[in-house]
C-alpha cells in the first residue's frame, strides 16, 4: 500500500492517539534500507554500464580492423589472380576466411554487449525511479511525524498561554481593533504635525485668498508685456 493511502486511512480513522506513529520506526528503517540498497544497485549498474560500453567500443574497433584486413586481402587476391598465381590467391582466400570467422565471433560478442547495455540502462533507470519514489514517500512519513511532534509542542504552548485559547472571533476582533488603533494614531499624528507646521492655517488663509500667494505666470507675463509697451 502506498504511503499516501496509509496516511489517508489513518487520518480518516481519526481516532489515533496523539503522537501515535502512523508508520512505525521499523517501517521507516525499512524504507531507509530500501533507499540505500537502491543506491548501491544504481552505483553497481552504472559501473557495469561504463565497463560494458568500453568493451563494446573495443569490439567495434576490432571488427572495423578485421573488415579493413579483409578488404586489403581481397585486393591482394585480385592481384595474385591477375598474375595468374592461383595457388597464392587460394592461400590469401583462406586467410580471408580466417578473418571472416573471427569477425563473425566478434560480432556475436558485440551483439551480446549491446543487449547488455540496454538491460543495464533499464536497470539504472529503474533504480533511479525507485530511489526517487522511496525518498518521496519517506519525506511524507517524516513530514507527518514532524507535524505531529510540532503539534504536541504547540499544544502544550497554547494550553499554557491562556490568551491563545480564546475563540477565533475574539482574536480577530482584537487584531482588527489593534489595526484600527494604529490607523487612528497615524491619523492623529499627521493632524498634529500639520498643525504644528502651521500648514493648517496656511491652507485656510490661501483658501480665503489672504496672504502672500505665489506669483502666477499670467501676472508675470502681464508685467513683461507692460514693460514692452513702454
Amino acid at each position, binding site marked *: 500500500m502506498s504511503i499516501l493511502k496509509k496516511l489517508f486511512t489513518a487520518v480518516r480513522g481519526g481516532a489515533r492517539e496523539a503522537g501515535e506513529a502512523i508508520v512505525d520506526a521499523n517501517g521507516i528503517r525499512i524504507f531507509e534500507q530500501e533507499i540505500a540498497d537502491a543506491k548501491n544497485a544504481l552505483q553497481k549498474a552504472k559501473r557495469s554500464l561504463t565497463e560494458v560500453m568500453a568493451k563494446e567500443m573495443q569490439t567495434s574497433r576490432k571488427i572495423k580492423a578485421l573488415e579493413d584486413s579483409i578488404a586489403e586481402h581481397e585486393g591482394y587476391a585480385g592481384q595474385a589472380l591477375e598474375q595468374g598465381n592461383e595457388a597464392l590467391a587460394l592461400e590469401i582466400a583462406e586467410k580471408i576466411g580466417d578473418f571472416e570467422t573471427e569477425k563473425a565471433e566478434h560480432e556475436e560478442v558485440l551483439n551480446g554487449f549491446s543487449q547488455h547495455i540496454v538491460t543495464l540502462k533499464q536497470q539504472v533507470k529503474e533504480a533511479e525511479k525507485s530511489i526517487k519514489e522511496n525518498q518521496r514517500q519517506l519525506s511524507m512519513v517524516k*513530514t507527518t511525524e*514532524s507535524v505531529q511532534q510540532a*503539534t504536541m509542542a*504547540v499544544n502544550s504552548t497554547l494550553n499554557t498561554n491562556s490568551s491563545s485559547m480564546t475563540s*477565533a472571533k475574539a*482574536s480577530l476582533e482584537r487584531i482588527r481593533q489593534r489595526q484600527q488603533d494604529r490607523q487612528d494614531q497615524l491619523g492623529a499624528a499627521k493632524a498634529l504635525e500639520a498643525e504644528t507646521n502651521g500648514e493648517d492655517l496656511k491652507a485656510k488663509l490661501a483658501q480665503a485668498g489672504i496672504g502672500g500667494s505665489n506669483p502666477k505666470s499670467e501676472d508675470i507675463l502681464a508685467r513683461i508685456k507692460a514693460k514692452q509697451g513702454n
Partner: protein
Amino acid sequence: MELNELSIKLASFETEGVGFESFMIANPEQQDVLQVIVDGNDELPIFVTQTQEQLLCISYLFADEEVKAELKDELNETLLRLNVPIPLSAFAKVDNRYAIFGALSVNSSFDDITHELVTLADNAIEALDAVTPYLND
C-alpha cells in the same frame, strides 16, 4: 537555514512595513518549533517547523467546536475552493483545529521566508474575517 538562526535574523528585521518577534518553543529532544509573531498580532502566531525538505509555516485559525455545525460542510467546501486562489497559503486541519499553512523549500532565502511569513499572517487575518459567518458567536 536553522530555526535558531532564523529567529536571530528576524529579531532585527523589518519588511513590507512589519516587524517580527520569535522564540523557540521548549521541546526537548523533539521537533524544533519556532513561534513567530508578525506585526504584533500574537493572537495568530505562526509556528515554523523544519523537516528534511521543507520549512512548514502553520497558523492555527479555529477549532472544530467553533464552527456552526449546520454550516460545516459548506465551510469545508469553501475552504477547498479558496485553496487555489489564496496566495502562497493553503488551508489544512491539524487534529481538531483548522489551520492555514505555507510550505517552503529548506533552501529558501531569508527574503523568501519573511515574505511567506508576512503573506501567511495577512492571509490568516483575511481568512478569519471571511469565515466569521460560519463560526459560533
